[in-house]
C-alpha cells in the first residue's frame, strides 16, 4: 500500500519535471528572437569574461606560480588570507574599506550635484562645462600626477604647503603624500577630483532626459522649491541612471589601487598607509607570481563589492532591478 503510494507520487514528480521542462523549452522557443539579439554579446561575454572569471574562481583553490601547472590546494588560500596574511588584515582590508566607503558615496553624490547644476545652465554653454568636469577622466592618470604632485609636494615649494605657511596655519611643511597619516586623505581628495566619470555622464543624460512637462505639472500640484523638484520628480524619474551610477561608483571605489602608489611615488606605499586590496592582488599576481593566492584575493574582493552593492540597492529601494 505504502509502496504503491510512493510509486504513484514518484511518477507524479517525474511528470512534473517533464512538464516543467516542456514548458521551459516552449518559453525559450517563444523568446528565440531575444536570444538572437543577445547572441553576439553572449559569445564574447562567455569567451572573454565568463570563462576567465570561472577559471580564476578555480585557480583560487590552487597553488599556481604562472609557470608550472596549478596544484590543488583546497581552502588553503582562503585560510591563509583570513588568519595569517597580516598585510591583508591589518592594512589592505581596512584601507580599502575606508577609501571605498568615503569615495564611493562621496563621488556619487558629487557627480549628481555637479550634473544637476550643469543641467540648469543654458544649452549653448553646457558642453564646455561637461568637458571641464570630465577632463580629469578624459586625460587619464598620467596627467593627474603632474597636477597633484607639485600641489601636495612635501617641501616648502609645494603649493599647498606654501599657501598654508603663508597663512600661518602650519609651522612647518607637511609631507602630504609621504606621511602615512596624510596619504589616505590625499588619496581620497584626489580620487574625488577624478570621480566625474561614466556615472557622471549617465546622470547628466538622465537629468536632461526628464520630461519638462512633469515639472510644469508638479508646479501646479504645489511643488515649490527646486529641492522638492529634485526629490519628487528628477530622482524617481531617473532611477535607472541613478542605479547605474551607484554601481559604477561602488565598483570603481573598491577596485581603486594605483592612486596611492602614484601619489607617494613608492611601491608599496609608505608603511602600507595606502595599500588597498587591489595593490595586494597585483603584488601577489604580478610580482610574487602567486596567481592562485591573487585569484583568492580577487574572489574575496568580489564578494565584498557584491555585499555593498546589495546593501546600496536595499537602501535605494530598487526592488525591481537585480
Amino acid at each position, binding site marked *: 500500500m505504502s509502496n504503491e503510494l510512493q510509486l504513484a507520487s514518484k511518477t507524479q514528480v517525474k511528470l512534473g519535471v517533464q512538464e516543467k521542462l516542456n514548458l521551459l523549452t516552449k*518559453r*525559450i522557443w517563444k*523568446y528565440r*528572437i*531575444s*536570444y538572437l*539579439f*543577445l547572441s553576439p*554579446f*553572449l559569445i*564574447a*561575454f562567455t*569567451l*572573454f*569574461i565568463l*570563462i*576567465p*572569471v570561472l*577559471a580564476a574562481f578555480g*585557480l583560487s583553490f590552487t597553488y599556481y606560480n*604562472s609557470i608550472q601547472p596549478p596544484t590543488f590546494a583546497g581552502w588553503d588560500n582562503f585560510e591563509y588570507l583570513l588568519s595569517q596574511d597580516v598585510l591583508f588584515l591589518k592594512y589592505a582590508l581596512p584601507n580599502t574599506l575606508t577609501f571605498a566607503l568615503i569615495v564611493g558615496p562621496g563621488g556619487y553624490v558629487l557627480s549628481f550635484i555637479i550634473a544637476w*547644476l*550643469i543641467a*540648469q*545652465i*543654458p*544649452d549653448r554653454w553646457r558642453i564646455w562645462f*561637461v568637458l*571641464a*568636469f570630465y*577632463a*580629469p577622466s*578624459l*586625460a587619464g592618470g598620467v*596627467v593627474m600626477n603632474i*597636477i597633484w604632485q*607639485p600641489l601636495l*609636494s612635501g617641501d616648502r*615649494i*609645494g603649493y599647498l604647503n606654501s599657501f598654508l605657511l603663508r597663512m600661518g596655519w602650519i609651522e612647518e611643511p607637511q609631507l602630504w603624500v609621504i606621511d602615512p597619516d596624510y596619504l589616505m586623505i590625499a588619496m581620497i581628495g584626489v580620487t574625488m577630483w577624478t570621480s566625474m566619470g*561614466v556615472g557622471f555622464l*549617465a546622470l547628466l*543624460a538622465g537629468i*536632461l*532626459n*526628464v520630461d519638462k512637462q512633469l515639472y510644469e505639472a508638479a508646479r501646479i500640484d504645489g511643488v515649490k522649491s527646486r529641492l522638492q523638484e529634485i526629490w519628487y520628480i528628477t530622482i524617481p524619474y531617473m532611477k535607472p*541612471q541613478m542605479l*547605474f551610477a551607484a*554601481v559604477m561608483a561602488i*565598483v570603481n571605489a573598491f*577596485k581603486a589601487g594605483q592612486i596611492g602608489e602614484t601619489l607617494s611615488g613608492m611601491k608599496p606605499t609608505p608603511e602600507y598607509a595606502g595599500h588597498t586590496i*587591489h595593490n595586494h592582488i*597585483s603584488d601577489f*599576481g*604580478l610580482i610574487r607570481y602567486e596567481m592562485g593566492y*591573487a585569484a583568492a584575493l580577487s574572489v574575496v*574582493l568580489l564578494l565584498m*563589492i557584491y555585499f555593498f*552593492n546589495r546593501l546600496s540597492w536595499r537602501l535605494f529601494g530598487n526592488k525591481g532591478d*537585480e
Partner: protein
Amino acid sequence: MAAIAENTSKAGARRRLIKLDKTQMMLMLFLTLVGIFMILPLFYIFNHALKPYSELFLYPPRIFVQQPTLTNFSEFFSLLKDSTIPASRYLFNSIVVAGLGTVSVVIVSALAAYPLSKHPFPGSKLLFSAIVISLMFVPEALQIPRYIVVAQLGIMDTYVGHILPHVAAPVSVFLVKQFMDQVPNDLIEAAKIDGAREFTVFMRIVIPVVMPSIATSSILTFQDIWNDTSTSTLFMQNDAMKTFPYYLSTLTNNLANSVARQGAVAAASLILFLPTLIIFLTFQRKVIATMAHSGIK
C-alpha cells in the same frame, strides 16, 4: 477670464525667466571657478607639448608654457622616420582597431540590452546579475585565462584579437539597458499591435529614444580602446600589428635616463589625446542636442 489667466501666467513666466537668469549667472560663475581647476589637465597636455627642454624639467612644473616652440613635434617626427616599421602603420592599426571596435561594441551592446530590458525571457535575471557581477572582478586575475582563450581561438596577431576582447563590454550593456528601462512598454506594445517586427521596434522606436546612452557609451568605449595597450602587449607578437599608444610607450621605456626623448613624448601625448577629445566633443554635443529636442513622453 481666460485672457486674464493667460496674461498672469505670461507675466509669471517672464518673471521666472529673469529670476532664473540671475541664478543661472551665479551658477555659471561658480561652475566656471570650479571648472577651471578641473580642466587644468587639458591645458597641461596642450602646453606641455609646446615647451622647450628648458621648461619640460622645471620643478615645480608649470602648467603654462613661457616660450612656446614646435621643436618637440619635429623631434617626434624625426623619431618616426627612424623606426623600422613606419609609424603610420601603428597609427593605421589604432584607427582600424578603435574605429571598428567602438562600432561593434555599441551595436552588440545595444542589441543585447534590448531583450535584457524588455523581454522576460528565461534566464534574463541571471544573465543581468552575471553582467553586473563581472564588473566587480579585477582584471589582473583574468589575464592568464584570457590569454589562453585568445591563443586557443587562434586570433593572436590579428585585428580580431584586438577587437573581440573589447566586444564583451558589460559597462556598455548595463548603461544602455538602464536607459531602455525608461522606454514605456505601451509604446512598444502599440507598435507591435500595428504589426511592427521586433527589429523594427528596436531600430525605429527604442534606439532613437536611448541615443544619449549610445553616444555616451561610444565616448567611453573609444577612449578605452584608443588608449589600451594591453591587447598589443598580450596578444600581438608581430610588431606590425601593435597600436600607436603601445609604440609611444616603447619610446621612453628602454632608455637609461629619463631626459632624452621627453620632448617627443610630450608632443606624442598631445597627438594621442586629440582624437579622444574630438570624439568626446562630437558625441557629447549629440547627447545634449537630442535632449533639447526630444524626451521620453
